[in-house]
């Protein structure tokens, strides 16, 4: 045995010790077929979010076949159906999955508004369903079978405000947010509450609409009030333009935002003005969890671009389901009791569990945009 193979064997042995999920095991569900219904907006207006979700489940299907994702030897498959950002189609798909007799759990839909239409069907049928991106308040309250693995803005922003306030010691703030979207409106509510709690005076509030491209009028007005910090309640397309245009106008205030800003392309799109912007999020591309490093590598190899948070939270849902299946859950009732018994599962988002309201329990990560990526904000 030469030195190379010796170290390879040692590495493998170590991998087997620290990551028992590395190779497919033989669990109680070995050999059985488990069918998971996934509802994602692959096309239509929310296609930007649904496409990375679809990619994540396809990768999970590959990883289960190759044994990288352990489902206890069961034949676990994620069946991704496109809801085309159409509420009626979302409801149809939920109806189909909850009544076809072969589906064990439904993951999705993509948007909170869709969740409020579709999850009541699952709740009435006592059918387990999990949202990975539906972060609006009240989604899990729809029923006792509705779970969520996505940290809501209300769980992320308080830490973001506390950490930035401790470091920057700001006294005044402005908030700019989209007033026609549940997600960005929540950003505003939570930012306002947390900033005021920290004794920060909110000197200006500006709104915009989703798909707006020009924010210079609002930013010029914000600048005239000279806030120390600007909180952005927006999703990626608007947030990148707000940051770039603020940079162009020479605005020197610190900027921060929530999950909507957590995209690997943030710096590439918003440009140098993005440097130093703080982003509170549920997941970090550079997260050192073993499955995350593998996920980021294989996703990038398969799709030619790094995963975003939508992909990561979907892959985490696949890991949760695979864990339950590896522990014997095959039917919808077994899936449900499995979910109820979850303590801690290792995922790409880090170790996570669920609280009494079926919301995810995990820690937010506070990131800072640096040239071509993110660094942890200290």
């Amino acid at each position, binding site marked *: 045995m030469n030195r190379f193979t010796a170290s390879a064997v040692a590495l493998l042995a170590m991998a087997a010790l620290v990551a028992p999920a590395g190779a497919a095991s033989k669990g109680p569900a070995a050999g059985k077929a488990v069918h998971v219904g996934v509802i994602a907006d692959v*096309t239509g*207006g929310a*296609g*930007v979010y649904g*496409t990375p979700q679809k990619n994540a489940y396809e990768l999970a299907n590959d990883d289960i076949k190759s044994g990288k994702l352990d489902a206890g030897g069961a034949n676990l498959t994620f069946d991704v159906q496109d809801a085309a950002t159409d509420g009626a189609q979302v409801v149809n798909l939920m109806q189909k999955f909850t009544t076809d007799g072969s589906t064990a759990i439904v993951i999705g839909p993509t948007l909170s508004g869709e969740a409020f239409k579709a999850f009541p069907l699952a709740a009435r049928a006592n059918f387990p369903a999990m949202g990975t991106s539906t972060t609006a308040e009240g989604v899990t309250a729809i029923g006792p079978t509705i779970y969520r693995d996505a940290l809501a803005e209300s769980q992320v922003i308080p830490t973001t405000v506390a950490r930035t306030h401790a470091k920057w010691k700001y006294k005044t703030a402005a908030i700019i947010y989209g*007033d026609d979207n549940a997600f960005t409106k929540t950003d505003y509510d939570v930012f306002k509450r947390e900033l005021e709690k920290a004794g920060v005076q909110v000197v200006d509030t*500006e*709104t*915009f*609409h989703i*798909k*707006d*491209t*020009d924010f*210079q*009028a*609002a930013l*010029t*007005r914000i*600048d*005239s009030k000279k806030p120390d910090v600007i909180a952005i309640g927006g999703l990626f*397309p608007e947030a*990148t*333009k707000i940051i*770039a245009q603020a940079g*162009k*106008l*020479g605005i020197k205030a610190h900027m921060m935002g929530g999950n909507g800003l957590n995209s690997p392309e943030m710096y*590439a*799109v918003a*440009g*140098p003005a993005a440097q130093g912007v703080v982003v509170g999020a549920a997941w970090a591309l550079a997260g050192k969890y073993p499955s995350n490093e593998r996920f980021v590598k294989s996703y990038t190899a398969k799709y030619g671009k790094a995963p975003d948070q939508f992909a990561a939270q979907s892959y985490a849902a696949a890991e949760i389901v695979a864990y339950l299946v590896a522990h014997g859950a095959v039917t919808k009732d077994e899936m449900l009791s499995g979910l109820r018994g979850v303590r801690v599962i290792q995922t790409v988002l880090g170790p996570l569990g669920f609280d009494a309201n079926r919301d995810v329990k995990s820690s937010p990560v506070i990131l800072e945009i640096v040239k071509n990526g993110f660094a942890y904000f200290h």
Partner: protein
Amino acid sequence: MFAQQLLNGLFLGAVYALFAVGYTLVFGVLDILNLAHAAIFTAAAFAAFSLVAAGVPLPAAFLLAAIFAGLLGILLDRVAFAPLRKRNAGTLVPLISSIGVAIIIGAVLRAVYGVDERHFTLGGLDTAPAIHLGPITFTTVELTIFLAAIALMVVLSWILRSTTLGRRIRAVADDRIAAALLGVDLEKTIAATFFIASSLGGAAGVLTGLEYNSVTLDMGGPIELKGLAVIILGGMGSITGAVIGGFILGAVETFAVAYGLSPWRDALVFGVMFVLLVARPTGLFGKRALRQA
């Protein structure tokens, strides 16, 4: 702050005006509303993106994309309007067929480019430092966009006033049958009108893509409605009206936000428009102004 907001409004208005000019030109000549104008706007932005990504210098890519949009306009006329014109289908049927073409263009773009937002690589132009002149700040990209939009509108007005083609276009707009009797080739003149209108719309698309460094499938949505408002405000068919209407829209949008009314921006824009239209139902520059251009 006022000077900066005025500048913000001017930059915004220039692109609205450029888009609306092409929109209203087709209406002035053919009396039809071309609802595929926004789809051509988007297609040209994607064409420019592909050209720049392939290494074509930006000015050449801009020109080629505008020409591509013009050709797409001619094709649009051949497919969606010419057959209906031959059958005297009125003005409502072409409206529907133009929506059909818009949907087809959108579907093709989605198939080719996918759903992701695309960004130009501007070779450092996008990271060039902003220019500060007293109280105002702008970038070279913005200045170039503004000047290009103004230059294109000046060229259009020169073509319409001082060239044989312009005289033919105005003759067809005035009375199609009389123009034909006098020896004007109707179909050629209409094709030229579509080429000019669509290449201006395409130019507006490329400039919008550059201004925000963002090319998306749905970028034509907001400007389609705004462009329609602008040409109605300016007076259907009026080039001057479209230009002035574009700048008014840019200014109202900007100052609504500047005076702290951001949640009311769109309501205010359309409120102002409503009041102006009640006062002047034919728009600022009346109907058929193109004929006297």
